[in-house]
Each structure stands twice: as structure tokens, then as C-alpha cells.
């Protein structure tokens, strides 16, 4: 495999395998910094374990705002997990050849974001010691059970979907890193590459397995975020009690997922010097996708608010009032302007349609989407359901903030660790589509399908 002549200045294998062989100084520094933040979060959580949820801002809201930052983070991280699998599967199925250097990163994000996301319902539990009651006494009518199984299924599927296309690359690691890395690592690559030799039979099996996983993972991914939204939509609360929530959450998930992929791509490209493979074109293409989903989100928002705002049934005036002009207005209008309008402009105006502009758009979208998740969770809870005079005030405590920040650090660290020990790009796929990555125009019709990998 590795005998194939490189077709570009830098060899994909050299570039991809370099960080696996020896960690750079920057990597160690970066990882240490992240560990410090994570340590702070662990300290905060230890306090919460000792003193219960009374240390959170939720405890001071007279039981009105019973969910806050933790559930916001849960929705956000499960959302960005859509970056990977869904985007990679759709691009694979549509034979978009330019995808090859970025699919692996996207799939890393999925697995890591899921792993981080599922921590938050646990942080939010009043009795984390009884967590397994969900398995012991689980009852199907509860949306939490649906969530549990949907996320578990998605996680298993995503790990498989990450692993399958990595097998040929793991074999490359096994062959090329022998003697370079530690013994344990050699064993790991050998075990994980399952005796891959690239025989026609192996290639056929792999192609059909990947093809099948592409198709299976898409409905699973959509289900997951729909079910997450149903935690809210299955209640009678103003703002949550709407049928649009399922698709709205899926849309927001893909939107924030694309943004996260762009940010991660930019960081990894810089750290691992992947400029020869991850080109401006990848950013521009994902930028277009980002702009499309910004429009989709606008459409959902308009659908939701116009249908509710026209009739102003029940508490809708209170709910819409606090979003448009009330206490959530700064957050909401930031979301609209910086999260939807500005990113569309950055991507569509030729002068800003470059890597820096698109990464800026992506960062804005990530921040805005987090705020929009926060508004979804907290704004509905602040709508008085009973005739009391002053609405509850919620402000997260430092414990909640520390745990949230450390989860973000944990996310970054896991991505770093993944890319330290596993190939950050799908080397064999990049090679298959070599001619494609150097051109600047999409050429979908010429790109062979992943199911038919020439041997």
C-alpha cells in the first residue's frame, strides 16, 4: 500500500503518521493546560457530590428553573455530535470526493461529543448514585428511556462508523510505525487492524460494511436528536409544547455540528500542518453548508414564532416577550445576528470567503447555538405556570460554570488524544481520491463510489 508514489509535495502518510510517532512540545503544553481546567471541574463536581445540587444556581429559583446549564450542555454536545457521523455519511453517500481528508475528524468529534454530552444528565441528577435505576426500573413511557437507548445506539454506531474506515489506516500504522512507537502501541495497531492486508476480498467486505453503516447511521442520528427534543416537547410547557421541536433540534444539531467541524479542522490543520490536504476548498464547501443550515434555522424560527405569535395563546405573550424584548433578548438577538445573519454574509461575500472568515463564522455559530440551547431550556422554565408575581431568576453558580468549562476542555483533550494515537486523516481514502483533492472544482460524477474501491 505504502509503495504507491506520492502525488503531491507532502505525502499523506508522512504527515498523518508524524504526530503519532512523537508528540510535539506544543501538544504536551496544550494537553497540560486542558488537564488543569479539567481538574478544576473535578474539584467543582466533588463539592457538588458532597453538598448536593444546592450548590447550583437552580437551587435558588424556588423549584421553578429546575434545569439550567447542565441540560443546556447536554443538548449542545449531543447536537455537535451530528458534525461527524451525519456529515461524513451524507458526503460519503453523495460521493463527494473532497470529503476524504475531513471525515475522520468529523467522526472523532461525534464520538467525543457524545461521550461528553452523556456526562451532563449525570451531573444534573439529584441522585447520581441511583443512576442505574434507569436500567433496573426503566419504563418505556418516559422520554428519558428513549434518550438512553437512542444515544447508546448512536454511540455504538458512531464508534463502528469511526472504526471501520480506520482499519486500513491502522494497518498502515502497524506496518510503518513498527519500532518507532512503544510496544503496547504496536500491539494496539496490530490488534485493531484485524490482519488487514488489502486483499480484494478484504476490500469488498470493508466497502460493503462501510456502505451499510452509512445508511444505518443517518436515521439513527436523526432519531437521537429528535428524541432529545422530546424530553422537552413531551411536556405541556409554553415554548416546549410544539411539534416543530424534533426537526428543529436536528437542524440545530447539524448546524452547530458543521460549525464545530470547521473549528476543529482549523485547529488540527494548524497543529499538525495539514495545509496540503485540508485546503481552502474544504472550508469553503463546509462554509456553504453552514450558510444553508443558517437559512434552515431561520426558517424553523420563523415557523415557530409566527405560528405561536400570531395567536398568542395562553402564556405565549410572556414567553415571546422575554425572548424578543425581555431578559433573553440580548442572547436571542445575538443568536439571530451573530449566529445566523453574519455567518451567511461571511460565507457569501467573496471578500470574506476565506479560511479566517469562515472559521470566524463557525465560532460565532457555535457560541450562538449554545446560547440558543440555553434559551430553549431556561426561557420556557421561567414562564410562570401559576399566578405568581415575579418570575424566577436563574444565574448559574461557579460550580456549574466550572463543570461546563471543564467539559469543553475534556472535549478538546479527547480530540487531542485521539489524534495523538490514531491517524487524523483517512489516508487510504485520500489516496483513492488523490486527483480530486488537488483540483478546486467539485467533480462529483467522476468520483468513484466508496462501495467500489478499485484494488
Amino acid at each position, binding site marked *: 500500500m505504502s509503495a504507491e508514489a506520492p502525488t503531491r509535495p507532502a505525502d499523506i502518510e508522512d504527515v498523518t503518521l508524524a504526530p503519532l510517532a512523537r508528540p510535539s512540545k506544543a501538544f504536551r503544553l496544550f494537553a497540560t493546560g486542558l488537564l488543569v481546567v479539567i481538574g478544576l471541574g473535578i474539584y467543582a463536581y466533588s463539592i457538588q457530590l458532597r*453538598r*448536593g*445540587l*444546592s*450548590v*447550583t444556581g*437552580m*437551587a435558588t429559583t*424556588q*423549584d*421553578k428553573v*429546575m*434545569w439550567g446549564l447542565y441540560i443546556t450542555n447536554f443538548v449542545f454536545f449531543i447536537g455537535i455530535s451530528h458534525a461527524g457521523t451525519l456529515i461524513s455519511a451524507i458526503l460519503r453517500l453523495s460521493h463527494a470526493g473532497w470529503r476524504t481528508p475531513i471525515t475522520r475528524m468529523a467522526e472523532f468529534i461525534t464520538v467525543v461529543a457524545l461521550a461528553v454530552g452523556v456526562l451532563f*444528565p449525570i451531573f*444534573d*441528577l*439529584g*441522585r447520581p448514585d*441511583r*443512576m442505574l*435505576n*434507569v436500567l*433496573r*426500573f*426503566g*419504563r418505556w*413511557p*418516559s*422520554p*428519558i*428511556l428513549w434518550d*438512553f437507548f437512542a444515544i447508546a445506539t448512536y454511540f455504538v454506531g458512531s464508534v463502528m462508523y469511526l472504526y471501520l474506515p480506520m482499519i486500513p489506516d491502522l494497518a498502515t500504522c502497524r506496518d510503518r510505525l513498527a519500532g518507532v512507537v512503544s510496544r503496547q502501541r504496536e500491539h494496539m495497531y496490530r490488534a485493531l487492524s484485524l490482519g488487514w492486508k488489502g486483499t480484494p476480498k478484504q476490500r469488498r467486505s470493508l466497502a460493503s460494511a462501510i456502505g451499510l453503516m452509512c445508511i444505518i447511521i443517518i436515521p439513527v442520528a436523526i432519531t437521537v436528536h429528535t428524541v432529545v427534543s422530546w*424530553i*422537552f416537547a*413531551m*411536556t*405541556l*410547557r409554553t415554548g416546549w409544547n410544539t411539534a416543530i421541536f424534533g426537526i428543529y433540534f436536528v437542524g440545530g444539531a447539524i448546524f452547530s455540528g458543521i460549525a464545530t467541524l470547521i473549528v476543529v479542522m482549523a485547529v488540527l490543520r494548524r497543529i499538525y500542518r495539514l495545509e496540503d490536504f485540508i485546503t481552502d476548498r474544504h472550508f469553503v464547501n463546509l462554509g456553504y453548508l453552514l450558510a444553508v443550515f443558517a437559512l434552515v434555522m431561520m426558517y424553523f424560527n420563523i415557523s415557530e414564532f409566527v405560528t405561536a405569535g400570531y395567536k398568542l395563546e395562553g402564556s405565549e405573550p410572556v414567553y415571546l416577550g422575554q425572548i424578543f424584548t425581555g431578559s433573553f433578548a440580548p442572547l436571542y438577538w445575538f443568536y439571530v445576528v451573530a449566529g445566523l445573519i453574519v455567518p451567511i454574509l461571511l460565507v457569501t461575500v467573496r471578500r470574506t470567503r476565506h479560511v479566517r472568515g469562515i472559521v470566524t463564522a463557525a465560532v460565532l455559530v457555535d457560541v450562538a447555538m449554545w446560547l440558543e440551547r440555553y434559551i430553549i431550556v431556561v426561557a420556557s*422554565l421561567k414562564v410562570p*405556570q*401559576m*399566578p*405568581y408575581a415575579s418570575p424566577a431568576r436563574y444565574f448559574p453558580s461557579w460550580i456549574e460554570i466550572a463543570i461546563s468549562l471543564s467539559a469543553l476542555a475534556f472535549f478538546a483533550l479527547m480530540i487531542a488524544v485521539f489524534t495523538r494515537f490514531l491517524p487524523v486523516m483517512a489516508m487510504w481514502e485520500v489516496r483513492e481520491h488523490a486527483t480530486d483533492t488537488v483540483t478546486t472544482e467539485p467533480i462529483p460524477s467522476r468520483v468513484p463510489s466508496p462501495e467500489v474501491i478499485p484494488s
Partner: protein
Amino acid sequence: MNVDRRDVLKGFGVAAAGAVVAGVLPDAASAHGSEEEGVAAPPVSDRVRQWAMVIDLRRCDGCAGLAVPPQCTQACNWSRLVPDGQQWIEVYEPESGHLPSAGSHFLPAPCMQCQNAPCVNVCPVGATFHSPEGVVRIDQERCIGCRLCMAACPYDRRFFNWGEPLQIPDAAAAPYDVETQVPAIEGTVMKCDFCTDRTRAGGMPACVEACPRHAIYIGDLEEGIATNGAEMVEMRELLIQDGVQRYKEDLGTEPRVYYIPGHGELAGLDDAAMANGHHEAPSATFMKDSLEWPWENIQSYLASLPAAEGGTAP
């Protein structure tokens, strides 16, 4: 139909008398294992009480006229050992209609004991459930504290023990009882339980007993009788009153709490004092903010006792 309060208690006490009959009828006895309550004496017959409340808002003035905090809430806090800050029955003061100067009225809100209960539907572990008597219960030994039930409750009638609840030592040391929710457990949800331990024993819920205006009726839909502590009436007499409704009826939650509309116009009118022509000032202020939870005081008092052990204070 007005009945003496003694008769009411007798009415509810039939259960106890019937237990004797059931004792000599092996079929009946064996057909009735202990219900979820785990009581020693099986109920009388196949009839299971279906608890319901009727709250006469014509009589409720939020205890403002008496210049005391709402006595239903206050009695509930004390007798149910309600943790600090929670109001299992809470008296709200909504505006009456939207006309100017329509004023406000008072709305005591216990747990509505919905028959299509959103909280029961969403619980992932079956920690909240219906008793055979139609009361929504919480098993605080199973509850995982996810608070989805609180998010789902349209009446804000569920409360969370965010930290270790402050409670008197006897309660904290007691074996857990799902019916009385004692002791309160950190990280779990609590709420009004209709005092079924008291009603089964022939008594009344604390709020009914404490209401100085006799505005709250506890009744049994199965037998069709209800009492406010002063009189015993047929349930239908209450429910055919004009405009009787359940709160947020349109949500379809099928509550077991009914309201007779009003704005406190009859509050205290049936008292002996009223008969003599005395009338309390209706302009008195609503004293909800003066509600008390005595646990901290009790604890600091106990702590101030010199010898904790054996109770032998000099």
C-alpha cells in the same frame, strides 16, 4: 344535607368497622392483600376510596381577613414536616378577570392528583405512580432526581430537595415511609400526598382540618361524600355548583381537585362570630410571606440543650 362532623369521621371510619367483618370472611380477606401502603388491616370491601378535593373559593380569603398566613399551608408545613421553602399546598392570588378594579381572589393549590398525570407519564424509573386510591405518590428511595416530573407538571406542584433537607432528628432517623414521605431525602422530589395516612385513620388532611374558613373539602368519589371538617355533604352537591371546574381543565390532565369559583365573599360568614354581626376587615393583607418552617429553630433549640444524650438536661 348537613351532617355533624362526628358522622363524617364515622363515615370514613366504616373502613375500620368493616375490617372486622372482612376478618370472618376468608374470601374477602384473601382477596385483599395489603395495598401499596402495606397496612396491616385490609380494607373493608372491594371499594377503594377515590380521594378528591373540592375547594370553595367563595370561602377562601387566603386567611387575609384573619391577619395570619394561609393556615392550610402553615398546617401542612408543620404536620407533614415539609422541608424549608416548599409549599405543598400554596395559596396564589390571581387577578379576577381582566376588568379594571375586579380585584383578585385566592387560589389554594395542592397537588392536583391528576388522573392523566404528566409527572407519572414521564418518570423514567416509576418512582412516581398512582396509588389505587387515585393519589399520585413518590417513592423517594427510587427517585433518581432527574426532575423531568417537575418540568412536566403544569401546576408547579413538585418540589426538590436540592441539598440535605433540614429536619428534626426524629424524622431524619425514622424508617422511610412512602406514604408520609418521611424522612425527606436529599436529591429527590416531594409533593402533597393528600394525607392518606390521616384519612385512612378516619381523619382529614392537615389543610382541610386547619382551614379556618372551612373552604376545603376532602371527599371520596367512590362513596360520593365529602367533608370540610364542619359539615359532611354529598359530593354531587358540591360539584353541581355553578362553574365548578378543575384548574387548567383544557390540558386534559384530569385533576382530582375541583374548584367552586368565588373571591372569598363567604369567608368566615358561617362562623359564630359572623352570626353576631361582626365582620372582619376585608382589606387585610395577604400574609403568605409570613409562612414558617420551624425546622431550623427546632434544630438550634435542640442544639442548645446541654446534654444531647438521654435528654437529661439539668
